[in-house]
Every structure is written in C-alpha cells, then in structure tokens.
C-alpha cells in the first residue's frame, strides 16, 4: 500500500509538471506575442523590447519556464489584459459558483445513474432496459447546447416556470438564496452526466451479477433486494465512483457550453469569452487550474479506492 501510494503520488507530480509544460508551450504559441497583446497592435519595437525585458521574455526558454513554475507556486496564474485583472482573482470569483453548479449536478447525476444502471443490469435486454438505454443514448448523442435550449424553450418560454438565464452579477449567496435560476443549468448538466454514468454503472453491475458470490447468495435464499443492496450496489458502484474523478475534464467541457447558453457566470463562461477575445492568459491560467484539479481529483479517487477495496493489492504495474 505504501509503495503504491508513493508511486501514485509520484505519477501525479509528473503529470502536473506535464500540464505546466503544455500550458507553457501554448503560451508561446499565442499568435503575435504577449507584448503585442498587452500593448496593442500599434506598439513600437522599442516599447515591445522594454516590455519583453521587464517580463523576462528575452531570456532563454528554459529560464522562462523556471520563472513560470515559480510564479505558479506563488499563486500567480498570469494577468488578463482584456479584463485588467489577475487570472487568479477571476478564477477565485467564479470557482465557488462552479462548485455549486457542477457539484450539485454531478452529485444528482450519481444519485440517479447508480440505481438506474443497476435496474437496467437486473432487467438486462428486457423492454425496460432497452427503453432506458435508448433514453441515455439519445441524451448522450444530443449536443449539450441543444438540450439546454430545448429546456429553455419548454420551461422558460412556453411555461414561464423558470428563468432562462442567470443574472451575471449573482454571488454564490445570491445563487443559493434564489435557486430558481440554477434549475435549468443543473438539469442540463445532470442529464448529460446521467447518460454516461448510467452506462458505466450498467456494465459494472452486469459484471458483478455474474460473480459466484451472487449465485451463492441466491442459493442460500437471500432475498433479491438484500442481494442488490449488500452485494451488487456496493461492489459495482466503487469503480464507477472512482471513474468520476477522470471525467472532471469532460464535465468542465460541458460546463463551457452550458454556461454560455445560460449566461452562468462561472469559469466556463469566463473561458468561452476569453476564447472569443483571444485572451490567452485567462485561457491558459484556467486550463492549468483545471488540469491540476483533475490530477488531484483522480489521485484522491485512486487512494480512496485502494483504501476502501480490500481486494485491491497493488503490485508492480
């Protein structure tokens, strides 16, 4: 276990370094240059040279990477020239709202998908299984923005039940005090995640249902409900829950689209606006942030898995 932990943490550190290298390379792929982005297209060569010297952009790449890494550890993720604010401040403002939005929808998705997948596995290849499979395939195949807009068309425009978007100045407290604006974005992201989580859960439960110990439990006369709760649920949800750590990147990808449609003032919208305005510091600062969060998330999931599952004995891989 200790050996596994050490190796797993080592891998995580290697991946974090990899993420920093990728964002560093992308910074240098910015069309034009950082100096032009900051000073505007009319900047003279002299001023550009002064800017480059001031920010160390004339030093060898290796030294620049060292500076970059040091700045990250100081919490400096760059400065957005279009928003006139440090990227870390922008992330700090928006992250809590995203934790509310993405946290709620992911938890809801898990709560729906796990029973749904087990139910499908039990009814495997029966009419109900086919129907639910059809529903989750359709949801999976439906572009997020289409789902979001159809929900708006139905609940906001047709019935006037829910507001179609979120006031952009809302703080987290405001969001929670008036959660109506949250409903449609949460439903959108939940449905998208349910579609894939339930597929995983279904396969995992089918796998478990075929194990010997299920047959043993059945033959000793254990009631089906207890078998499902004690054996199938526990054993089949573990791999699915750990998998969620790995889906953080795609949850963020979905958030970019959902936040754009609902005008939800989170990191996704920040990112999308930065992409249309070519604001590289925001793009790369938030990418770095998400990358590190993902690595940390899957590291925690793996450690929890190793600690919780007595069957797992990690040797050399």
């Amino acid at each position, binding site marked *: 276990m200790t050996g596994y932990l050490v190796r797993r943490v080592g891998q995580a550190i290697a991946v974090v370094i990899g*993420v920093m290298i990728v964002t560093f390379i992308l910074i240098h792929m910015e069309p034009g240059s950082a100096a032009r982005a900051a000073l505007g297209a009319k900047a003279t060569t002299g001023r550009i040279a002064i800017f480059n010297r001031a920010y160390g952009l004339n030093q060898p790449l290796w030294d620049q990477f060292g500076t970059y890494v040091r700045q990250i550890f100081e919490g400096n993720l760059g400065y957005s020239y279009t928003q006139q604010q440090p990227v870390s401040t922008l992330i700090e403002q928006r992250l809590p709202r995203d934790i509310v939005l993405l946290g709620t929808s992911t938890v809801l998705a898990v709560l729906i998908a796990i029973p749904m997948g087990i139910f499908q596995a039990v009814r495997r290849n029966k009419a109900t299984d086919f129907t639910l499979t059809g529903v989750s*395939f359709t949801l999976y195949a439906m572009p997020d923005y*289409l789902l979001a807009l159809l929900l708006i068309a139905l609940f906001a425009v047709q019935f006037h039940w829910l507001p179609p978007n979120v006031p952009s100045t809302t703080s987290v407290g405001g969001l929670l005090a008036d959660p109506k604006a949250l409903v449609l974005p949460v439903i959108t992201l939940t449905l998208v995640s349910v579609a894939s989580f339930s597929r995983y859960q279904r396969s995992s439960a089918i*796998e478990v249902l075929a194990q010997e110990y299920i047959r043993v439990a059945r033959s000793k006369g254990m009631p089906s409900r207890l078998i499902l709760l004690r054996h199938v649920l526990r054993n089949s949800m573990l791999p699915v829950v750990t998998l969620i750590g790995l889906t953080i990147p795609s949850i963020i*990808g979905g958030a970019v689209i959902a936040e754009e449609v609902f005008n939800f003032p989170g990191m996704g919208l920040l990112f999308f606006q930065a992409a249309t305005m070519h604001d590289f510091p925001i793009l790369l600062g938030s990418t770095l942030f998400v990358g590190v969060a993902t690595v940390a998330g899957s590291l925690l999931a793996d450690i929890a898995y190793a600690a919780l599952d007595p069957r797992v004995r990690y040797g050399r891989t």
Partner: protein
Amino acid sequence: MAVREPGAGALAVPGPDEPAGSPAPEVAAARGSWRLMLATFAENPLALAGVGLVVLIVAFCFIGPLLYKTNQVTVNLNINNIRPGGKYPLGTDNDGFNVLGRLMVGGQSSLELGFAVSIATSVIGTLYGAIAGLAGGLVDAVMMRIVDTFLALPTLVLLLILVNVFPPSLWVIILLITALSWLSVARLVRGEVLTLREREYVQAVRAMGGSSWRIVTRHLIPNSVGVIIVNATFTIADAILYLSALSFLGLGPPPPEVDWGGMLSNGLDFLFDGYWWLVYPAAIILILTVVAFNLIGDAIRDSLDVRLQRR
C-alpha cells in the same frame, strides 16, 4: 457531451491489475470465437439497427447529392426561411439554402471528420500503446505520463485554445481533434499488450527467436483489434459532437463549409420564431448518427466479451 472520457466507454472497469481481456481458452480457438462474435453481433437487434442507420445516413449524404442537386454555395435571400413543402421538402434556411440538400452536404463534413479522426486516432494510439506496453520500464512510464497529462486537460477547452492558434478549416479541425483523441486508444492498447505479452504463446514466439516487431504485428495488434474497433466507433460519434460544439461556439470551419452542428446552431437562433425546420431535421440526423455509432460500438463490445455469452 463526451463525458465518457477514459477509453470512450470501453469499460475496462476492473481494477488496474486485473486482466481486462478474456481468459485463455478463447485465444486458442481464435477463429471460432470470431465467428461466434459475428453471430452474437448479428443476433443483437440494436446492433443491426445501428448498422442499418449508418448505411442509410452514409448513402443519404454521399449518394443523395448526386440525385438531388441543390445550390449550397451562393446565398439567395429571395427564398429564405420558406416553410417545408412543394419545391423544398424541408424548407429553406436563413440564407436561402435548401435544407434537405444542406443536410446531405453538411453530413459529408460531419461524417468525413468522424471517419478521418477515428482512423487516424486508431493508428496513432495503437502504435503508441503497443510500443509503450512492450517497452515497459522507464520508456513506458514517460510515454504514459504524457498520455495522462493530456487526459487531465479538457479536450473541448484545448480545442478552443488551439482554434485560436490555427485558423480553423475542416482539415485543421480533423488534425486538432485527432491530436487530442488518440490518448484513450493508446491506454487501452497498452493495457491489452501488458496482459497479452505475459501469455504463453507470446513467450513461445520470443523463445523461438521471433522479433518484437513480429510479436507486435502478428500477435498483439490482432488480439487487441476488438477494443480498438470498439473505441474507433465511439470516436466517430465523439468527433462529430466536438465539431458540432465548435460550430455552436462560432469557432467551427468558416463558410461555405457546413456541418450538421453548424446548421443546428444556426437554426437555433430562430428557435423562438417558429422556424422549426431549421432545428429539428439537423438535430434528428445528428442524434441518430451519434446513437447509431454508439449502438454499433456497444454491440461489438458485448459480443467481444465472450464471458458474457456463457451466462
């Protein structure tokens, strides 16, 4: 969209050390199990529905325009937003393009992108994964950390950054999506290779002096071809969705290039004007296509897993 990140649905759920492949006896009867696989696939009604749909959609997009010629290049505002019926079975869009004809042409971009990305990612990912798995040790560790790095970053987010760097055309987008999508294949194939290379028959080849290249091309790749194909079908579906997301965000290929996602997001601007024919035809064909490829992938995976057949 594309929440199915690791291994695109090919559920290698068992813990890291459990062999994901099937137990030994089936390997000996390789040819028999292929036939069994084909038979199980053909018995699955959803799989056949998927194949049927793909054939129909491909014919619609690539043969359709030969029979049903429409102008999809020049804008004609005199005939825009015409309701379906008569000369225009699905009406015309905001620029006066015939929607039925545009579905065919737009489908060509979406499908070409899907197939191109799928083939390219399969080849790159397979070679990368096989090399990493066979090399082992430090080489493997470094190669897999590179894969982990890119898997930790959201694909859509990286795509949005990269279309800022490279002006998007269909081919650039194909390259970019490929560059970000081969990772899961590489992981899957490496996993397969790690279990396969310990098998007796591979050891036997080595003992008889067979080269690594021979082991890879004659034994490891043919035996992992199942997971590769499953992943390839899911990749087609995901790539089509990525393109549609890019088009929706206004960062897709510029006109006159068109894809279903572009048509759909263009039509969604008129969702509240009652121009339903600008939304639903594109939405339905896009969803049907993605569902069809997912059904096929799912069915192949089910029939590959011979263990399930014995239950």
